[in-house]
């Protein structure tokens, strides 16, 4: 190579690296913060680097700095809104002033099919609140709560009533649990409470944990009736947004798996009650529901595996994982047959769309699992995830469960009850022999989640509890082809001229799970990144291209 050419080559290399050093970009992003805030945020913003099994440590599940506009909700939102929201036949009563109940009134687009339970109960379109007034704040709200429970019973005669505490309830000292016990005795149905006051913990995550605890204490294991059917499984952490659960149920039926219960998409109370009779727990959303899986394992002997039905490849992989767990050639064959039958259509759709989406770049900041799961779908479209992060996850969701022993429990997490669980004398039943368990454990099949970061490229930015300012900065700097988050971010992103996909509510679309869902998602992303509507918008970098930065591996 001639010297001049070589110099030119070197020069190009240098510019490329300089413009793209993610550590420098991080520094630049943080420079707008006051020093103290920058120091704190720096620990939650990590440039990914996968070395063997190891990834850098990321600070997560810590308090959001006051005054930074973020994505997180509260403990009540995680408990009532997320985990218990999709339960159709439990009457959920919000004990508190009107706002909390109103805002969590069927806003998550959870779907349910009430025709599958004999009584046809569906209270999800219904919002019940004690609507506390001044006098209850001063004199206590227990009396009003009792009356509300009685009214709910008189109107609906439900199987169960659940009570959710909001901020003032804990402060004024209402004992919702004793009220629930009293009303349970009086009405002869299950009545139980959740102390999920909004100020507990640092995000929705605390509410998920509380929801897990109380459902485990009060509902699971209350009905020992065993369903007919082979390969009995529970699906945990699937909330049936946009009909995802229906697609997953379709696949289970086809594979011959018997779904005892789902927590909590398209769920019913009776199914929760006999969840302990299943032989395998499968976790979709690790963050919101792993507690129940662990407790069920200790108490009833049900092992759990991590699955993911977002992405066609991931779906196939998860189905195979289930078959491996049951270790039955008949099931394995059937699963293979189902995959072989379903995949060609998916591949056809993907191959048609992929040439148009190949190389496009995505960012996603959502949930405690979704930011990981949806990378699968983008990978299938040949797209790269430049940056991702969770809203309310813990380190194990980022770095994998192997870091669990080193996570320090801080004051905010210590306040959330850890149930002491013992094997149930009557109901504990080992599902596998110690040898089988050892073999499955050796295959990393059981009780394992490797986290999001090991699957992300080196140099990608992982950002926990992203702030509005940081999101804006990322968009301006990288001009991704698509940005995924929730409704609160949606219109700010679109103002920048970037397509925005909501991964909480699916933007009124879906399902995106399973094989059918994958096709829906491919089409949706194809439409979004190629919509002619963006022509009407001139983004700053279109007139000023040097503003654009890219990553080293671009």
């Amino acid at each position, binding site marked *: 190579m001639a010297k001049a050419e070589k110099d030119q080559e070197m020069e190009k290399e240098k510019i490329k690296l300089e413009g793209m050093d993610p550590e420098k970009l991080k520094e630049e992003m943080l420079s707008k913060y006051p020093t103290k805030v920058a120091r704190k945020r720096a620990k939650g913003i990590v440039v990914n680097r996968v070395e063997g099994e190891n990834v850098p440590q990321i600070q997560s599940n810590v308090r959001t700095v006051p005054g930074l506009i973020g994505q997180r909700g509260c403990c009540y939102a995680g408990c009532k809104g997320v985990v218990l929201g999709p339960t159709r036949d439990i009457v959920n009563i919000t004990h508190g002033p009107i706002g909390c109940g109103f805002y969590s009134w069927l806003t998550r687009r959870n779907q349910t099919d009430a025709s599958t339970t004999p009584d046809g109960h569906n209270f999800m379109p219904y919002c019940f609140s004690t609507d506390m007034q001044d006098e209850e704040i001063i004199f206590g709200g227990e009396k009003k709560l009792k009356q509300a429970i009685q009214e709910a019973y008189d109107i609906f005669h439900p199987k169960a009533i659940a009570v959710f505490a909001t*901020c003032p309830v804990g402060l004024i000292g209402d004992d919702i649990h004793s009220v629930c016990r009293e009303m349970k005795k009086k009405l002869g149905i299950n009545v139980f409470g959740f102390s999920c006051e909004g*100020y507990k913990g640092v995000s929705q995550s605390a509410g998920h944990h509380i929801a897990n605890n109380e459902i485990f204490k009060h509902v699971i294991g209350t009905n020992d009736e065993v369903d007919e059917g082979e390969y009995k499984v529970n699906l945990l952490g699937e909330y049936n947004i946009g009909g995802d659960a229906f697609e997953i149920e379709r696949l289970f039926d086809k594979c011959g798996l018997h779904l005892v219960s789902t927590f909590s998409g398209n769920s019913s109370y009776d199914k929760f009650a006999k969840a302990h009779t299943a032989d395998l727990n499968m976790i979709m959303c690790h963050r919101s529901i792993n507690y129940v899986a662990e407790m069920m394992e200790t108490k009833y002997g049900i092992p759990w595996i991590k699955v993911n039905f977002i992405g066609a490849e991931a779906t196939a992989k998860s189905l195979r994982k289930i078959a491996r767990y049951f270790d039955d050639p008949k099931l394995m064959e059937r699963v293979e047959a189902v995959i072989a039958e379903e995949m060609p259509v998916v591949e056809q759709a993907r191959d048609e769309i992929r040439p148009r989406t190949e190389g496009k770049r995505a960012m996603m900041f959502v949930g405690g699992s979704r930011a990981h799961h949806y990378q699968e779908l983008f990978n299938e479209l040949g797209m790269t995830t430049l940056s991702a992060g969770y809203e309310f996850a813990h380190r194990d969701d980022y770095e994998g469960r192997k870091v669990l022993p080193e996570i320090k429990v801080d004051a905010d997490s210590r306040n959330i009850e850890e149930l002491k669980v013992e094997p149930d004398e009557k109901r504990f039943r080992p599902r596998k022999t110690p040898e089988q368990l050892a073999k499955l454990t050796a295959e990393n099949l059981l009780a394992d989640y490797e986290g999001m970061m090991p699957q992300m490229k080196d140099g990608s930015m992982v950002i926990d509890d992203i702030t509005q300012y940081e999101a804006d900065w990322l968009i301006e700097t990288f001009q991704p082809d698509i940005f995924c988050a929730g409704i609160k971010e949606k219109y700010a992103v679109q103002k920048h001229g970037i397509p925005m996909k909501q991964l909480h509510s699916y933007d009124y679309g879906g399902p995106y799970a399973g094989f059918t869902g994958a096709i829906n998602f491919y089409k949706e992303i194809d439409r979004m990144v190629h919509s002619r509507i963006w022509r009407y918008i001139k983004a700053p970098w279109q007139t000023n291209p040097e503003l654009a930065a890219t990553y080293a591996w671009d």
Partner: protein
Amino acid sequence: MKQTTQPAAYTATQNACKLCTPLGASLVFKGIENAVPLLHGSQGCSTYIRRYLISHFKEPADIACSNFAEETAIFGGGANLKIALENIRLQYAPEMVGIATTCLSETIGDDVPMFIREYREMCRDQEIPPLVHVSTPSYQGTHMEGFHGAVKATVETLATGEKAEVPGINLFPGMLSPADLRHLKEILADFDSPFMLLPDYSQTLDGALWTEYQRIPPGGTPVAEIRQAGGARASIEFGRVLASQKESAGRFLEKRFGVVNHGVGIPIGITETDRFFEALETITGRPTPDKYLEERGRLADSYVDGHKYVIEARAGVYGEEDLVVGLVAFLSEIGVIPALCATGGNSRRFRDRIAEIIPDHERKGVTIMDNADFVEIEAAAEKIRPDFFIGHSKGYTLARRLDIPLIRVGFPVHDRIGGARILHIGYRGAQSLFDRIANTLIEKRQDTSSWGYTYM
């Protein structure tokens, strides 16, 4: 003051027809130029409220929060509020921070005015933007009390008695749509008078695409203009219910600075809009511009033409007290019987305001319900069987169940696009409402006819 036509009086609220106080306050602060709303309490409140506003306006709506943790709830939120203010100041350089409390900080009894004084003291060498505080526990009143409270707190904190070179008109419109606010600005400009519209979220919550990043969306009532509110020629305040209450921003300015306050109903329909224009004529000494007289003329003409479709139709109206009162005034003048008038509000003034507009409401069999929720409204509607509902999108469930068409107005409209662009006020707003109502009734008749006429 529940009506006897209601079913058994429930203690609990089921499917509420009201929102919480800090939502109203946040909306007001979103309508002030370069202001940042800050909720003092749990982050869940700001997240929920943002989500509700954003889903309706389909615009970004940043609301900061002082992010209480469990120990903050025990030891008080002073430190958190100060950190939040400091971070907002440095990140956003706002011209004002509007602080609304939540149930959490109210229940523990945080002394926010003291925290603000301490913060000012802490930063005495620096320039601190005005900090407006309004107390908004959700266990007192509805989002409308939060809204009016925030308008009043803003004026109380900022107005100094300082006069503009050319004193203008203060207009306190209450909770209207961005389209309404834009129309108001047009009207005031046509009267050739300077004005201060508070709040004005017509641009901040219904803006254009950005060509460059905006820390705070452009638009809103300038803080400098609010400072001069005490030197205005007069104030106009919309809402008959508000006008019958002891306290409001307009009354405060009248008492404190002698600015004459004109309380008129929300100008929906000819009668109420006439009153608004009369007030403008009185204050400015100018006649109503021809443009509006023409609009009024066309509107009256269409009332005549469309009369046969709407006469004696029965409506179910629900929503905020003043919006319902305004709609009832309009419906009554076009010959529709507002057979069911319901609100989740509980000011105890609602019934009398409706009675003012429909003195023979008893003879007409009009059911008036305040402090009502959707279960009670539905029970009443089942008996009354109105021909259509007019209200926000939360009424969709009952409209669907009863198979009665719903005409969407007000807030929230979460199941249609264009909630921000619904025009309710002025002759022009009445025209649009009239056409929508008449066409809804025509459509229903057409759809249910055995013939399928194409000529109605």
